[in-house]
């Protein structure tokens, strides 16, 4: 009895080890959980639906494999001749319907939350260009609105394999988008030329950037850090070379940076105005 017990313990132990390592691996192979509440609820939704699919798969494939094993001619199995069974047919119409309803309800909940753009504390316009991003910080006072481009920073030599590739290969830019932590930031996504798509996987947000049309997105990022994404709509030759980098700064640090940028922008405007014609000066000062 004792040996049996020890064997079962050993089996259970090794099984749980396999399971644990499997889970660890699965984590690496699975969707990223991300850092925002939205991305985490998307991750949970993804896991739920994956689990449902796996369970259905186990049942369906299980029955199929059992049948392939048992009902073979080589085992001398004689074929039955039935070709319908109403109870079964009704069951496998109704049960999937119920499962689908069960999937739809939580999905709709998350979707509704994603569409809630209320009470954003700041707005950034995101514009796709062939092949870079522009970020425009929208301020109530237009004179304070500043913008900059965000270009791929990976050197050509790395892409052409003449230099060792660094860890952030193709996911690095010269100037990242900077936003504050813990504040609701609204993104207005649009494009200059063709359709692009702006995606930050860790925030769980993606939207097409379409010329002439603006789309809304939002995020509240609790943890400061650097988050990377890529353009996800084919936009021509260098579609693969226009990454998105978002640097989330602690609130105080962000405010300081923002003030600096505004001051820089105003100084630049002043120097431009003094150089340009007087008419320009008078009209724009009305704003």
């Amino acid at each position: 009895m004792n040996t049996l017990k020890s064997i079962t313990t050993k089996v259970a132990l090794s099984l749980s080890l396999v399971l644990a390592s499997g889970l660890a691996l699965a984590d690496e192979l699975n969707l990223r959980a991300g850092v925002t509440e939205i991305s985490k609820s998307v991750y949970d939704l993804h896991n739920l639906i994956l689990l449902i699919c796996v369970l259905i798969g186990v049942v369906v494939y299980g029955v199929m494999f059992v049948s392939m094993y048992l009902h073979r001619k080589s085992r001398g199995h004689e074929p039955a001749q039935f070709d319908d069974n109403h109870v079964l047919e009704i069951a496998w119409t109704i049960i999937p319907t119920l499962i689908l309803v069960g999937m739809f309800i939580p999905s709709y909940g998350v979707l509704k939350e994603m569409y809630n753009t209320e009470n954003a504390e700041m707005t950034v316009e995101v514009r796709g260009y062939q092949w870079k991003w522009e970020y425009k910080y929208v301020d109530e006072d237009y004179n304070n609105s500043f913008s900059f481009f965000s270009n791929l920073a990976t050197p050509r030599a790395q892409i052409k394999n003449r230099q060792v590739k660094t860890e952030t290969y193709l996911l690095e830019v010269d100037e990242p988008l900077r936003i504050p932590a813990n504040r609701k930031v609204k993104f207005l996504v649009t494009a200059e030329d063709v359709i692009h798509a702006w995606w930050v996987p860790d925030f769980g947000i993606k939207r097409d950037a379409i010329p002439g049309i603006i789309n809304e997105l939002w995020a509240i990022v609790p943890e400061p850090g650097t988050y990377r994404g890529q353009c996800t709509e084919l936009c021509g030759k260098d579609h693969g070379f226009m990454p998105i980098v978002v640097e989330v700064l602690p609130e105080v640090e962000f405010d300081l940076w923002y003030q600096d940028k505004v001051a820089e922008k105003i100084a630049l405007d002043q120097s431009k105005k003094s150089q340009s014609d007087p008419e320009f000066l008078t009209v724009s000062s009305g704003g």
Partner: protein
Amino acid sequence: MSEVVHTGHHDDHDHGPEKGILRWLYTTNHKDIGTLYLWFSFLMLFIGGALALVIRTELFQPGLQFIEPAFFNQMTTNHGLIMVFGAIMPAFVGLANWLLPMQVGAPDMALPRMNNLSFWIMPFAFGMMISTFFMDGGGPNFGWTFYAPLSTAYGPPSTTYFIFAVHLMGASSIMGSINIIATILNMRAPGMTLMKMPLFVWTWLITAFLLIAVMPVLAGAVTMMLFDIHFGTSFFNAAGGGDPVMFQHIFWFFGHPEVYIMILPAFGVVSHIIPTFARKPLFGYTSMVYAIASIAILSFVVWAHHMFTVGMPLFGQAFFMGATMVIAIPTGVKVFNWIATMWRGSMTFETPMLFALAFVILFTMGGFSGLMLSIVPADYQYHDTYFVVAHFHYVLVPGALFSIIAAVYFWFPKWTGKMYDEALGKLHFWLSFIGVNVTFFPQHFVGLAGMPRRIPDYALQFADFNMLSSVGAFIFGFSQLFFLYVLIKGIRSGKPAEGLSWEGAKGLEWTLPSPAPYHSFTNPPKVS
């Protein structure tokens, strides 16, 4: 397949085929035209496959090794276009040509001369499309979905050729569909009511209606592009008050039914093969027919699930999510019916059955990932990543393509009068099965990890799975060359096949001798 000509001894005294190349140019015989379609699609499979291997070679490692990004985009675009319009669709039309008249007991298609025309348009259409590679600015490079304005204001000069090629393919498909519907509705043997038709006939009847409904939509979309490019209109041009998103709505209004055009005939093929090798009648014939019909109807109200990221209002997103999920129900019914057909049968596992079973397993996996993609919040994370690439390759390669290969093995004896080498066939199956999974399964993982599709170079964390995927692609690609060898060997030196080539085969085509005579059912058979 083309060896029908050398078998010579017909049982009847009808005219045999002409000799030489003219036979193929002038033929109005459904078997000849079916053969032409099948070989043409096989050639296109190799061209499209070669482009895929160029893509996979470049993606073997991070960095740009072999080709430049601009050329890479031409590869992905033409791979998609050639596989969809050149390989899968014509292959199914080829099967329809060969099988429909024999399965409904008709002597030929209803409109044999139009049949000839609809085939011979195809080589010109694809010749035109492939020739754009050699033009200034290169071929189409805007993805097989050719979204405006990338394909209009920003397209290469050769786009006009591409537009005309699409028009030609559309004309060919529409003529083919009219022919198929006219044949099925009017030429059935006495006694064969609609609900007695074999399932392949049913699936093609519904597919042909889908084609007639949506091919004009595709033609309309490319015509609007043509006008935007050359005649200053602004259908899709935001500057002129047009809307680039409207292009996507119109395209996917065509595109989603198109997806089912490529899979419904596959359902038909599998519904013939599984009962044959399970030696048991198909489970739930009636529910199968209704399931196909409802899938076809639903396909018109789900198009926007390809566009969840364009920024539709909440209720629109919810509607398309719900409608898409509903499709899982009839699709599930089909899978359950196939498994119930196997249940308590007496199964053997010849090559066609192996491919059909792989179809059921792997197509269902594509269905699962499709269900996941229908969940809008999760779709934001999957959209335009390799997860989508994995999804649609699972439904199109081990789905549509495996069913075509299964059909070729299954009806090969009927077409050629010879048996293929079973051992080689099985080897081909296992190579394909392993190849397809090694290629596409890892793509789920890189997709979830965040790799966008249609990029020529990628970040380092995606490297391992991409390498694996490339290895799989080469295994899969070369196993199709092996398929060619198996077929040629079968045609040349296969053992003679019996009329009833498979023990459990049912249907009018199996009442004919093998190979099927050049003119069959000149006197309609009686169906009880």
